[in-house]
């Protein structure tokens, strides 16, 4: 105790464990799969408030699908989902290593959170618009963006969809209905609501889905989104990815101590589903339910994806400074890839051998993609975008003052 530390009665939330401690998730209550009820989509919002405090689950401890939320989904689609998740994970691993070797300025993985994006993408229609944040690379993979295109963005090279302007991982893919990722947290959420309102305005039944981290829900934009979504009954799904951490701060600092993130919409009459985010089938089922609600003009839904950030925040982070090491191994909801794999094996639709060879295949695809991507240039080697791209797209047409500046820049 320092002598300048006064007596105080201010409450400061704390992470239950810190470096050196044994990981401890005993505070997390996991209800049985059967406890989850799946109400009709037109149920009045306040009659579903309990769902925000439960946990939508489909896979039980033996990896079997059961309960009311069990979705109808073909084995092939599940195998696709598994493949996408694996691809995301191996892609992440590869790119992370490349950053460590100095080939990339920055990288950010979604390890442990693959299902959150992949299952959602598979439950939505291709015309539905996605407003992600930076940890949903699974959406791109599931919607079929070639890995080489993702890599080109990370390299800011001549094939970069962003023309060298953004940090690695801040993808944009108009054709795939994937909105340009912002470096500023939370901004995409009211934008998604606006996109959804425009769809309704135009009288079509496309919907918008957006993702935001647990930490970022504290931004005003989240409130704007809830307000407008509620007032105009926008056909939108607001996904809160609660991976328990925001860089170094535990989710209690974001307000996770006194209520769930799924319940954040209750004050606006927006129902919330709290979902096991590492249960592929649960994410799929919850997304499908919310998408049906939205399409049926029954209003927006908040989905809290309860998951865990298995690794550091990004390549700039060192989680050993603020949380126990190997904590992911103790995470009670397991790993999404492993769980879906076991489920498929249990169904007789998959095998260890197939799994191994799939991993091999993806690994070589990733390497091949990177070899190709490098040919389009890297930050400091090979082909390079023209300097004029620095001045283009600030405006639709380059105004005089930027033309003059471009000329000056070209002159050196």
């Amino acid at each position, binding site marked *: 105790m320092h002598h300048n530390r006064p007596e105080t009665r201010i409450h400061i939330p704390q992470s239950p464990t810190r470096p050196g401690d044994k990981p401890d998730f005993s505070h997390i209550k996991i209800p049985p799969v059967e406890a989850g009820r799946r109400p009709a989509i037109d149920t009045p919002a306040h009659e579903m408030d309990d769902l925000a405090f439960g946990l939508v689950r489909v896979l039980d401890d033996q990896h079997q699908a059961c309960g009311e939320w069990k979705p109808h989904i073909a084995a092939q689609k599940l195998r696709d989902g598994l493949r996408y998740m694996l691809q995301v994970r191996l892609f992440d691993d590869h790119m992370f290593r490349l950053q460590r070797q100095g080939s990339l300025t920055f990288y950010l993985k979604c390890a442990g959170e693959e299902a959150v994006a992949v299952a959602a993408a598979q439950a939505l229609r291709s015309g539905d*618009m996605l*407003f992600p944040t930076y940890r949903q690379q699974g959406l791109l993979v599931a919607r079929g963006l070639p890995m080489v295109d993702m890599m080109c963005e990370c390299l800011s090279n001549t094939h*970069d*969809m*962003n*023309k060298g*302007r*953004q940090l690695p991982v*801040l993808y*944009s*893919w*108009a054709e795939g209905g994937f*909105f*340009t990722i*912002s*470096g*500023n947290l939370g*901004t995409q*959420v*009211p*934008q*998604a*609501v*606006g*996109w*959804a*309102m*425009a*769809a309704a*305005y*135009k009288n079509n039944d496309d919907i*918008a889905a957006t993702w935001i981290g647990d930490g970022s829900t504290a931004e*005003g*934009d989240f*409130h*704007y*989104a809830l*307000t*407008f979504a509620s*007032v105009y009954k926008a056909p939108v799904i607001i996904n809160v990815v609660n991976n328990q951490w925001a860089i170094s701060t535990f989710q209690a600092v974001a307000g996770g101590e006194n209520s769930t993130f799924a319940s954040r919409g209750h004050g606006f009459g927006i129902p919330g589903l709290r979902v096991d985010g590492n249960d592929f089938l649960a994410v799929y089922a919850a997304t499908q339910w919310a998408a049906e609600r939205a399409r049926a003009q029954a209003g927006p839904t908040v989905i809290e994806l309860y998951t865990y950030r298995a690794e550091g925040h990004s390549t700039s982070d060192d989680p050993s400074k603020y949380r126990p090491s190997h904590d992911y191994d103790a995470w009670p909801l397991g790993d999404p890839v492993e769980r879906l794999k076991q489920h498929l094996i249990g169904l007789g639709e998959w095998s260890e051998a197939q799994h191994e060879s799939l991993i091999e295949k993806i690994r070589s695809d990733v390497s091949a993609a990177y070899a190709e991507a490098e040919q389009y240039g890297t930050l400091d080697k090979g082909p390079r975008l023209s300097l004029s791209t620095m001045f*283009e*797209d*600030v*405006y*639709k047409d380059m*105004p*005089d*003052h930027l033309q003059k500046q471009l000329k000056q820049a070209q002159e050196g």
Partner: protein
Amino acid sequence: MAAMSMVQALNNAMDLALEKSPRTLIMGEDVGFFGGVFRCTEGLQQKYGAHRVIDTPIAEGGIVGVAIGMGVNGLRPIVEIQFADYFYPAMDQIVSELARLRYRSGGEFWAPLTIRMPCGGGIYGGQTHSQSPEALFAHVCGLKTVIPSTPYDAKGLLLASIDDDNPLIFLEPKRIYNGVFDGDRDKAATGWDQHPAGEVPENYYTLPIGKANIVRQGNDTTLITYGTMVHVAAAAVEKAGLDVEIIDIRTIVPLDIDTLTGSVQKTGRCVILHEATRTSGFGAEISAQIQEQCFWHLQAPIERVTGWDTPYPHLFEWDYFPGQSRVIQALQRVLEAG
């Protein structure tokens, strides 16, 4: 042609824009059923429906964020911020999102918003109903910023803004919404029907964004200004009987610098006049550019006549407001210098 106030001209412009395309809509606080606290959208909801002239929650950041999403989905929202003083909660959506979308996405995404906001003082609105934030927008690349000084300009510039695929801040000098104000608060207000630019064609027309307007030809000094101050400038020059060229820049960014330098190269002297606070006001940028490009022509220091570096006070409104006498003194100093 019809006599219109600036409010009527703006209303007429929005009416034509809504008529022209079902993709265009209006949103903002009190703009719908009520028609706006300054009546700029009066009657439009009744004519086009509640979904095309939308009353929104009081959340400027939300309004802009939502409008961006609409813009990305093919609509062309005209957003009203009730007073320019209240745009700050929307700053992040404007700067980090709206202004950057096209750039950061390699040209894939953009949102053609026009954000209207009444600005300026002279209505005893106190510090939170009187601000002129144009310099803040000027520093944000990716935005265009426009400010009209007459009903004729307001309509033509607003229609051009709505048509523009870039995001646009459209500042409306509220002191001249309903009549010409020349800075003399003791004089009875004159209606726009007394002013040539209060004659407004009823049909659709646009004025080019990025083009200044030489309001008055002159030889001895160039007086650069915009918004309400155009009329203060005109009255001051008239009163002082000086041979001054008055230029209304009409667009803050992109600035029509060639017209400005052309004039200063002719006159050799320059005064810049605006209502916003002085330090880092847009006058500084104009001054810097003219100095850079006309250095060898300048026969006297460029002067800035501006609001003081204080909030806009209720009691001392008319001491804050840069009125005719301050303009005349500056013109005389500049003319006598050298």
